[in-house]
């Protein structure tokens, strides 16, 4: 249960990262910071401004998307280089600056976001689970379904998929690539922010929370295959379950090692990832 709940939020994180990489060819080091931003916004609205918990999650997601869109519009779009390493370096710079801005504003002390759910765990036989976790799981699943509908059944989704396949052809066919990039980055950032806003109340909010999230997101994307959103969804669940069962049955010390061992194994056996067709290898 816990693994499934984590998996659903990992999937949101992974999709956001794989989307930005697949369509924009950007190794997005700020991804974890958008996760942290979502969590801090939820904290700001719920704990500091007294906004309703559910509204705060929506607001946090919206702010994540707006900041993401602004970042694309004011910085990424205006870059004179498309070199993948230079853009990555830029994202590293932004990551460092964003993380320390969070610390400057909210301090290094971890914050707890109060939730309106009952603290008493629900008990089903031997399993006990908090209502908050059930809420997070349900929301994350709804978002995952909504996202796949968006990609597969809307004009925006079609334009994104065609840009992913071939940017130049898509542009020739009348797709406004600039708009698609902005939408992609906003969507990717929004997904990270909503994951942060959902997990924030379960865990704690601290300036360095994004680092682990980035690491996990990268792992998920590799597991699923770069640029594959279906792969990232499944990759998220696989990673969470591997962590859960690996540490449950072998040793919790090596919990984080399992994910990496699985990745190394996947790369050796199937370098293009579990779910991506071979020609997508970047």
């Amino acid at each position, binding site marked *: 249960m816990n693994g499934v709940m984590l998996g659903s939020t990992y999937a949101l994180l992974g999709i956001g990262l794989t989307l930005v990489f697949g369509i924009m060819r950007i190794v997005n080091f700020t991804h974890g910071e958008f996760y942290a931003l979502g969590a801090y916004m939820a904290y700001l609205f719920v704990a500091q401004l007294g906004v309703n918990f559910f509204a705060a999650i929506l607001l946090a997601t919206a702010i994540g998307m707006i900041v993401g869109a602004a970042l694309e519009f004011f910085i990424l779009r205006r870059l004179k280089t498309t070199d993948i390493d230079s853009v990555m370096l830029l994202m590293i710079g932004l990551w460092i600056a964003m993380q320390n801005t969070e610390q400057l504003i909210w301090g290094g002390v971890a914050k707890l976001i109060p939730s309106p759910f009952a603290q008493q765990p629900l008990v089903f036989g031997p399993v006990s689970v908090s209502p908050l976790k059930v809420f997070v799981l349900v929301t994350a699943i709804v978002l995952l379904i909504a996202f796949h509908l968006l990609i597969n059944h809307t004009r925006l989704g079609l334009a994104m998929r065609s840009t992913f396949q071939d940017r130049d052809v898509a542009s020739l066919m009348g797709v406004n690539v600039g708009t698609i990039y902005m939408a992609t980055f906003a969507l990717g950032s929004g997904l990270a922010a909503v994951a942060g806003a959902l997990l924030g109340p379960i865990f704690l909010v601290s300036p360095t929370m994004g680092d682990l999230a980035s690491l996990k997101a990268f792992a998920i994307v590799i597991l699923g295959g770069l640029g594959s959103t279906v792969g990232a969804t499944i990759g998220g669940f696989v990673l969470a379950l591997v962590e859960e069962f690996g540490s449950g049955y072998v040793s919790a010390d090596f919990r984080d090692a399992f994910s990496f061992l699985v990745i190394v194994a996947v790369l050796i056996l199937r370098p293009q990832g579990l779910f991506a067709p071979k020609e997508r*290898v970047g």
Partner: protein
Amino acid sequence: MTRLILSLLVVLAFVTLPFWMSDPYILGLLILAGIFIIAAISLNLLLGYTGQLSLGHVAFFGIGAYTSALLSRGFDVDLGLGLTLDVAPKPVWLSFLAGILMAALFGWFVGRLAFRVRGAYFVILTVSFAQVMRLIALNWVDLTEGPMAINNIPSFTLWLPGLGVTTLTTKAQNYWLVLAVAVIAFVLVAHIVRSRVGRALIALRENEGLARSVGIQVTHYLVLSTVVAAGIAGASGGLYTHYVRIVDPDVFMFIYTVTMIIMVVTGGKGTLTGPIVGGLLFGLMPELLRDYAGPEVQWIIYGAAIVLIVFFLPNGIVPAAARIWQRLAALGLRLVPEHLRPRLS
């Protein structure tokens, strides 16, 4: 010719630096910056010349650091089945060389494994490798003392002509040692880049398919450059461990790889002097900022500086400076009467 004189002057300035800048604090900063510049030089060989991004480069740095630390202190480790490996302390210079070899060996292994895949997958595989190394350092407590750290690591000793084996204690001595290793690393990388191997690597970076079709043994050259890069990174780890004199699993911290990437890419990847310029800038800048801003603001400025460099100098500082230099030179030439202009060959 002028190039040669200029580079000799630069080297001379660095060599004589302890005489005209005897402040031990600045020497200390240059030593630590220099250690990371050596690592950045090795990363540049991979990133700048083969186009392969090793996001786990710190693994080789850490392997060099741990190998050298363990051998110089001696260790005994239970190998299971009643076997124990008991190693007596070795001289530091020997441990240091062993650290380089061990890192190079891992470089060969990772190269063989990783170059079955390319690009982004190479990135992730190297990240995972560094993570696995960190976890080994953390959990194989019997050998590495895990998070309890290995401390009291001896300072560097070196056999010097006329003096025999001496311990390097002063800042200036350590500075010269780091400088010497940096020069060797620089010359080695320069030599490789300008040789047949280097041309093959560049051909490969530009167009792998074409390089393959004209008969370049792609994997062979990639593995070779990984081995050299790993060895140099191992040397930098060895210098670190005998200078800081403590090593713990934090040497595998991702931020160290990030530091190396910042040095290489801001300086100008694929240029020989790029890592040095970027390294001096980003190695010294945090220290210069200490007096002027709060701790978080220092980091924000650091991040903003990176963003600005990518924004305005997308290819890095060295290529931009070279362009300005060329323009100035052209301008200067125009001011000289035509019959006095040197002939450009």
